[in-house]
């Protein structure tokens, strides 16, 4: 539909013959659209998501009002104000981010576990392949290892939250602050992991990457995108009983669009193509990131207020 709006607007400017029919077929969405219009449609989707993040009312209001109604005496409860919701607060965001890092530095389970995972898988591929010259094979192996690593890393992110503390946090922080801090923390973690993976790959298997700048840009963007999808999915699977399999099942298909574009650009970076070739796909990757980030940001409060 989005593409149709865009293209029908464009058509109104240019085409004159058979207007009605043409617009109708545009509405059907089977017309051949130029590639640029497609980027526009992605942009519009992106803008819609961003608008929604600004417009959508916070759900906790209705939920807590409901729970208070069950209690029966809404006016007596002064401590738990049904309309109380902490605002989105930058200070809280920093605090939560710091908390995540503190826990990580104290326990060191997540980062050590993931590094061991990456090391062992890279070593196994080294034993199997010795040295990979074929770029597409290298690329596929790299992204598969990175994807599995990302899922293992992020699926842990809600395990630390015990039930009582969730309730406590619910009264302290806005859920959107929580999801933002988790996404940022996970994306920093994933960026570190992806660069370590790249390093290990170049040590053991060899690195055919010619344009390292574009490749690291792809790694940054992909880490952010993965972390925003996987954090929400980890939250969902924790709420649904907390099995690792469920996280994997839910998030594999959803990460594929990002992964496809990332694989394509990283192939370009490996081949050392000019930046002008990659730039369009980098833009697409950025827009996809914004879309999935906005969706997680938008949907997490409904999960949180359960």
């Amino acid at each position, binding site marked *: 539909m989005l*593409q149709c709006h865009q293209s029908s607007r464009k058509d109104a400017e240019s085409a004159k013959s058979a207007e009605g029919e043409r617009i109708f*077929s545009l509405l*059907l*969405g*089977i*017309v*051949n*659209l130029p*590639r640029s219009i*497609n*980027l526009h*449609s*992605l942009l519009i*989707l992106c803008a819609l*998501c961003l608008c929604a993040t600004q417009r959508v009312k916070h*759900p906790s209001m*209705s939920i807590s009002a*409901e729970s208070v109604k069950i209690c029966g005496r809404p006016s007596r409860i002064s401590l738990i104000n049904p309309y109380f919701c902490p605002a989105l607060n930058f200070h809280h965001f920093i605090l939560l981010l710091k908390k995540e890092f503190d826990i990580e530095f104290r326990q060191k389970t997540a980062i050590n576990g993931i590094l061991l995972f990456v090391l062992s898988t890279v070593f196994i591929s080294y034993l199997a392949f010795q040295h990979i010259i074929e770029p597409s094979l290298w690329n596929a192996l790299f992204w598969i290892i990175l994807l599995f690593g990302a899922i293992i890393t992020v699926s842990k992110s809600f395990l630390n939250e015990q039930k009582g503390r969730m309730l406590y946090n619910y009264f302290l922080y806005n859920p959107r602050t929580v999801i933002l801090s988790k996404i940022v923390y996970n994306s920093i973690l994933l960026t570190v992991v992806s660069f370590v993976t790249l390093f290990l790959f170049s040590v053991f298997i060899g690195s055919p990457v010619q344009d390292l700048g574009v490749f690291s840009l792809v790694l940054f963007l992909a880490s952010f995108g993965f972390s925003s999808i996987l954090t*929400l999915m980890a939250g*969902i699977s924790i*709420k*649904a*009983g907390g*099995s690792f399999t*469920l996280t994997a*099942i*839910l998030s*594999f*298909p*959803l990460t*594929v*669009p990002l992964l*496809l*574009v990332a694989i*394509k650009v990283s192939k370009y970076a490996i081949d050392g193509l000019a930046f002008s070739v990659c730039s369009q796909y980098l833009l*697409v990757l950025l827009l*996809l990131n914004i*879309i999935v980030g906005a*969706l997680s940001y938008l*949907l997490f409060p*409904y*999960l949180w207020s*359960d």
Partner: protein
Amino acid sequence: MAKNWWKILAVLLVLYTIVAGFLLPVPARVILNETIRNLYFHVPIWFAMMLLMSVSVYSSIRYLGKSRIKNDIIAVQTAHTGIIFSILGILTGMLWARYTWGTWWTTDTKLNGVAITFLIYTAYFILRSSIEDEQKKARISAIYNVFAYVMMIVFIMVLPRMQASLHPGNGGNPGFNSYDLDSTMRMVFYPAVIAWMLMGAWIAQVKIRIEVLSKKILYDETV
């Protein structure tokens, strides 16, 4: 009768689509030949699937706002019907591809996107079956449904048009409407679109009513 006229219309239009779709003359094209008749089945079935999925995501959003279990039932049953339609769409597409491209399935962005969409919605049903509590199940699956729908749009509407694709209407290929859809084909194609959409709506409605009734019998409450 006043309420059910659209069901009769659906049956009549589907019958018309099948009879006229196979019997009326079509423009003769190289390679395509008679397979062009697939336009009456494959494309409208996908439109119906998109319609059903849109209804599904709409009622999921409604559920997140209002927490009424009826909306959840609508969301899941329309998604079920949408999956059935997408399987039909894949099958008709495969049949068409066998006679024009020469294979049942090829590595193509559109085709892969459709396969992944199928996986996404299967994951949606698995998620639903893994949660016991009724309200919790509805809420969490509604969240997943919204995410899944946006990803589906990215997958089957946006990405295939950006990369090389064999599929008509994608990746620089002309859509059928640009030169093949002459007036005789239009006479069947547009009724076919309405027919399959109405059919989808009808199937979904029956499924929703069965579900609502079973809820009523189980819990003795109006949903």
